[in-house]
């Protein structure tokens, strides 16, 4: 699986949504990405890339695009 596939899959599993809804998604734009979904999404991303996200990054992670930017800090290129 490529990093992009892993990243998208984390949204699909973490938020329990269809793949075609993932790209361009923003925090609180859909009912599934609420505070509960957010924590589960973060857990899925951490598992997928074997990283531990910092507090700053968890609270900055406000969209699909922003997540890609944040993951660069952990040497993950999407």
């Amino acid at each position, binding site marked *: 699986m490529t990093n992009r596939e892993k990243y998208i899959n984390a949204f699909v599993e973490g938020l*329990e949504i269809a793949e075609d809804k993932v790209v361009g998604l923003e*925090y609180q734009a859909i*009912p*599934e990405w*609420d*505070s*509960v*979904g*957010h*924590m*589960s999404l*973060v857990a899925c991303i951490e598992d997928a890339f074997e990283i531990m996200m*910092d*507090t*700053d990054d*968890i*609270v*900055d992670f*406000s969209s699909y695009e922003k997540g890609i930017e944040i993951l660069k800090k952990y040497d993950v290129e999407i």
Partner: protein
Amino acid sequence: MEQLFDGSEKKIWNFNKFAGRMAGSDDQGNHISYEELNDFAEKIRQTIGNRKLVFLIASNTIASMAGYVGLINSGNVPVMLSEDLDEQQLRNLYNTYRPDYLYTRKGRIDETWMGEPVLQFEEENSKNRETDLYVLYRTKGDKSYELFPQLALLLTTSGSTGSPKLVRQSYDNIRSNMDSIVEYLKLNAEEKPITTLPMNYTYGLSIINSHLAVGATVLFTEKSTLQREFWNFFVKEGATSFGGVPYTYEILKKLRIFKMDLPSLKTMTQAGGKLSPQLHKEFASFAKETGREFVVMYGQTEATARMAYLPADKSLEKYGSMGIAIPGGKFTLIDVDGKEISAPGVVGELVYRGKNVTLGYAEEGRDLIKPDENQGVLYTGDMAKRDEDGFYYIVGRKKRFLKIFGSRINLDEVGTLIKDNFEGLDCAAAGKDDAMYLFIDDEKLEKQVESFVHEKFSISLKAIHVKALKEIPKNDAGKILYTKLECYYD
């Protein structure tokens, strides 16, 4: 203005002694002083008089707080409602209670059915004037119900389900609970609590009530702990405390609050369901190591807000306990025959006595005139035990309801609504706190049932688990065997 806060007209708070102090600040740079709170209460009184029933659609904003305080202190009776209610739920409540007025964010509701604007509250530095504007509307209703003279406030029991069941709280209830909280948390004017819970939720409201009683400054933000803006505001204004339900503390742990640099933070309180003993211990240790206080508490809307607290210095030693009765309150445990249990370690139903036990429920407009039906005694529905030192531990519930991220959800109500909505479907609603399990006998409907419950009860999809079984296990009498369902929990 003098008249309003003199003698008999004084309702809950007397702000005159806090002249020059700020009652609230928000993350848009707005502030409100105690004088301005008084002024707004006076404006409300001049505009609508007193003893009117007012729906207040609450948010964690200065405007919402000013409306709440102004209505109470002018002798009007607010019904605190969630912003998550949809138009239909709100209309149903409207038809049930026929409020005289409605106080809400402008644009929140279709004005055509709401009536005429009579007063507005505008925040000075607001960046978005249209949405930050709260308006008081006179409704089109021509019929209002009589209000019991001691009735001060009405709260829902389950957040955003739109259920018409309200708890009736008196001026004495609010005052006594507020004074008790001030005493056991030793609150003073230097406190700056930051909002983390909805204002229409009894726990969130009690934080506001008790801090306004001591002249403190409440920090208002609509952002959650998962948003950068929340923490920026927290640090900038130097928040000293916050409250949280168990789920809040799970998030805070995940956010690694143990490593965050929050020099202003002094106190963390927890209520709204039982915190796992493990998490209780971790936060108690964190507080102890960093010279802070972690206070686990216990309460219900039916007791205004709080009934018990675990003193911070016992938090680690007695982790897992919800503590002792608040000042002015008293607990007893009773067995199935209603006899008092005196031995330690024996489980019974927890009964609370105190001035903060509310008047009772209202289920329709005619109930608003009802007098005090509880007479200071509350059967909590929680099963508990007491240790040798007098500390109480919740072990379960008498009735079938769950707490989902702090909101109370009645499982029988969920089951009935599903069966009503999906003809021919059999359903059993069960689960544990923060995880509802719905068992149905038709796998094709799993998704539909999930989204139905999500929308109807505003429960996060994460907390809803629908499982299809060949049949729902029942005894010969047709009663669902819930214990047989527990093996399906993840």
